């Protein structure tokens, strides 16, 4: 199954507000052995928690099973550091879509904004949808 090229440029509804808690940040840091002390720098890849939720919503919407997705690339660009207590929402936009050898190569951008609607972090991902004959 190939995805429809009319998805390009579409922004999906933002995720529910997510409150960044000390406990979740500490758990995330510990999972990769990253040094973290309360009030310190939040691990740089932590916003993947938000981007991943936005991606799951997107995959459900377009009817793609997560097990057929391989992550091709991920980038983070920060407008400011995340801090504990931030209440964040994430909106995913399909930036590009092409088909190569039966696979969809999906470029997404997920914009993370704070409770005031101010940009915190922009994350970009390339998702490879292994279409094939399942």
């Amino acid at each position, binding site marked *: 199954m190939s995805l429809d090229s009319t998805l390009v440029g579409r922004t999906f509804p933002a995720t529910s507000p997510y409150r960044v808690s000390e406990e979740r940040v500490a758990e995330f840091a510990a999972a*990769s052995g990253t040094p973290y002390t309360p009030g310190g720098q939040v691990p740089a890849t932590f916003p993947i928690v938000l981007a991943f939720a936005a991606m799951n919503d997107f995959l459900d919407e377009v009817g793609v099973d997560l097990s057929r997705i391989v992550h091709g690339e*991920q980038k983070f660009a920060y407008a400011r550091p995340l801090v504990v207590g931030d209440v964040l929402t994430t909106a995913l936009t399909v930036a590009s879509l092409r088909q190569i050898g039966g696979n969809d190569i999906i470029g997404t951008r997920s914009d993370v904004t704070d409770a005031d609607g101010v940009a915190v972090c922009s994350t970009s991902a390339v998702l490879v949808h292994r279409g094939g004959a399942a």
Partner: protein
Amino acid sequence: MSASPSAGLAAGQVLEARTYAVTRADLVRYAGASGDRNPIHWSDRVAAAVGLPGVIAHGMFTQALAARAVAEWTDGAEVVELGAKFTNPVVVPDDDTGVEVVLAGTVRSVEDGLAHLALEVTCGGTKVLGNPRAVVRA
């Protein structure tokens, strides 16, 4: 955390390589912490069914290790940008020792208060991330 975490970084500086072991237990823990429960990261059956050589680490787990190395090298400097392509899978066997991922890096430039780091992330001598890089506030 020091007051000026990456003040010591200088262009051309080679950052001391780090080696991190990755086991299945690490992947399960990361799945819980990140919310990424994709079964290709814990089920041999599903990994094989989608044509993978075995259970593989989350690309984002490997990138988290890159961010860990950056945090250790810079004593927790503020990361402004981080990115990488996931070019080769990190296959994680179902045993107690797992695999080793090696993080190396150099400081490419320090200007306008920002240090640009070029990383190299390998597993068994193979580069697993493409163009891994970070920009931190110096």
